[in-house]
Every structure is written in structure tokens, then in C-alpha cells.
């Protein structure tokens, strides 16, 4: 099953999101790679470690801000895992939720990414 990695500048943000997602869909493996040396930021070494734990798997990454994808790209290159790592350019919360639900249906990384990227434009509040 496609794995989901949450790359965020904030550990609290990533851990909180992971908790929320895992409650919706406990069957999908979700990990967080967040923070830099205990502070705000992202760190390619932290991201690489998480990627390498899933060496044989397809991984879709959700990220919060721009430099997080640069570090994810770099980490995938450093780990020689460019083929397995798919980065979704999506809203962090809504995208991650859509990704996790899609992954739970056994979908490929490409479909999980597409689901995540489509999610940001959905209205959350029903029309009155």
C-alpha cells in the first residue's frame, strides 16, 4: 500500500495532522519528517531517514511550505529513491486527508498524488 510522508516545518503541525489522519484511516502507514534540530524548519537528513525506512515502497509526500519540497527532492536524491518518491503539490491538511483515503483503497502513488492535488479546491462548508 502507498505510504504517506508528511514533511513540515513544524513537528507539532505534522504530528497533529498525522494523528488526525490516522484516526480517519488507521490502515495506511503515515510518518512525519518535521522540524530542524528541534526548531522550525525542514532537514534533508531527517527526511532521508524516514524515506529509507520505506526503501522498497511507493511513497507520496505532502509538504507545508516551499523549502520543504526542495529538501524532500534533495533527500530523495541523496537516498537514490527518486523513482519511489512522489511529491504532491497540495493543501497540507485537505491534501493529506485525500491522499490517505485514496491510499487506503490500494491506489498507486500517481492516483494518491492526483487525489491530494484535487482536494484543495473542494468546499468544506455545505451551501446553505
Amino acid at each position: 500500500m502507498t505510504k504517506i510522508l508528511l514533511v513540515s516545518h513544524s513537528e507539532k503541525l505534522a504530528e497533529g495532522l498525522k494523528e488526525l489522519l490516522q484516526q480517519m484511516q488507521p490502515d495506511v502507514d503515515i510518518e512525519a519528517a518535521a522540524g530542524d534540530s528541534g526548531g522550525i524548519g525542514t532537514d534533508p537528513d531527517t527526511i532521508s531517514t524516514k524515506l529509507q525506512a520505506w526503501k522498497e515502497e511507493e511513497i507520496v509526500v505532502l509538504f507545508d511550505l516551499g523549502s520543504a519540497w526542495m529538501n524532500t527532492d534533495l533527500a530523495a536524491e541523496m537516498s537514490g529513491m527518486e523513482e519511489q518518491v512522489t511529491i504532491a503539490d497540495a493543501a497540507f491538511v485537505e491534501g493529506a486527508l485525500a491522499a490517505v483515503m485514496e491510499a487506503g483503497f490500494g491506489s498507486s502513488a500517481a492516483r494518491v498524488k492526483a487525489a491530494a492535488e484535487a482536494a484543495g479546491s473542494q468546499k468544506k462548508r455545505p451551501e446553505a
Partner: protein
Amino acid sequence: MNQQDAVNWILSFQKKIESSKEYLTDLDQAVGDGDHGINMNRGLQHAAGVLHEKTFETPGDVLKAVSTAFISKVGGASGPLYGSAMLKASGSCGGKETLEDEDVKAMLRAAADAVQARGRAERGEKTMYDVWEAVVRAAEEKEDIDWQHVRMKTAEAADATKEMQAKKGRAAYLGARSIGHLDPGSVSTRMLIESLAEVLESGDS
């Protein structure tokens, strides 16, 4: 350019960053999160430590070590950008002990291409790529690199970011409000190139 020149290049850059870290941080405060000076200073302190501790055979070895320091210690967007630039610059130097002007041009181009690829940046988006792109063009203009000319074009490119609207990086969230502020990464990249010019313009590269 030999390995000692490469070491001197980075040590000179470290001094420039250290003495302007507040300035860079102020620039980043206006358009970002105010950490650029801190990020760069942390990475360069570390790089300088490594350069003092170890011995290197070639400029490529020096830049490889610098790249590792940047990737693991700078953080922010500038960490992967500067780190990738130095990594590809190092690769372009290969195992050569001395770089001729032609090799220096190739090294600069490799670094610029790495920044462009890592940031998916294009010219005119108010990022450090604007400076890198100008550096490469200026260096390639003459057969023997005219460092005075490179310095001038580098300064112009960094200054020109002031009137641009940011399209990449954190500053892009400001939209038109990013106009009127220098791009911090462009200012630090200008310092990197000034250090290189200082080291190489005195003698033959």
C-alpha cells in the same frame, strides 16, 4: 584556482556573512521569516570549521565538504539551494588540481543550473537565481574572466531584485508587497561571488 584558493574563497565568504548576518536577517524580515543571516552564518561557521580541520587535495574536494555543511547546517530554502549549488560545482571540478578560467566558468554554470533545478526558478522571479544567471553570463563574456565586469554585473543583478515581485519562495506570499525590498538570497549570493573575485582576480586562476 587550486584547493587553497577554494578554501580562501569560502573563508572569505564566511567573514562577509558573519559581519552582515544582521543585515541579511533584516532583509529577510521584510519579505520572509527573518532567518537568512542566521541560517547562512550557522552553515558557514560549520563549513569554516571543517576547512580548518581537514586537508584537501583539489578544489572539488573543498566544495564537496562545503556542500555537506550547507545541506546539513543551513536550513531554510537556502540550505538545499546553496548545498546543491556547491555539490554540482564540486562535480564540475572533478579531480582537477588546478582550474583554468574555462573550468571556473563551467563550475559557475553548474552551480547556477543546480540552483535553477532545485528551486525550479526562472529569471526575474526575485530569487538568488537572478544573480547566478547574471554571474554566468558575465563570466562567459570574455575568454579570460574579467572579474571587475563580473562584480559589476553581480551587483546590478542583486540590486535589480528590489523592484521585482517575488514569484518563488516565501516572499511570493507577499505578492506585490514584495516589491521595493532586496531579495536576501540574492544579496548573500553577491557576497559569495565577491569573495571568489577577490581570491581569483589577484593572480592567474
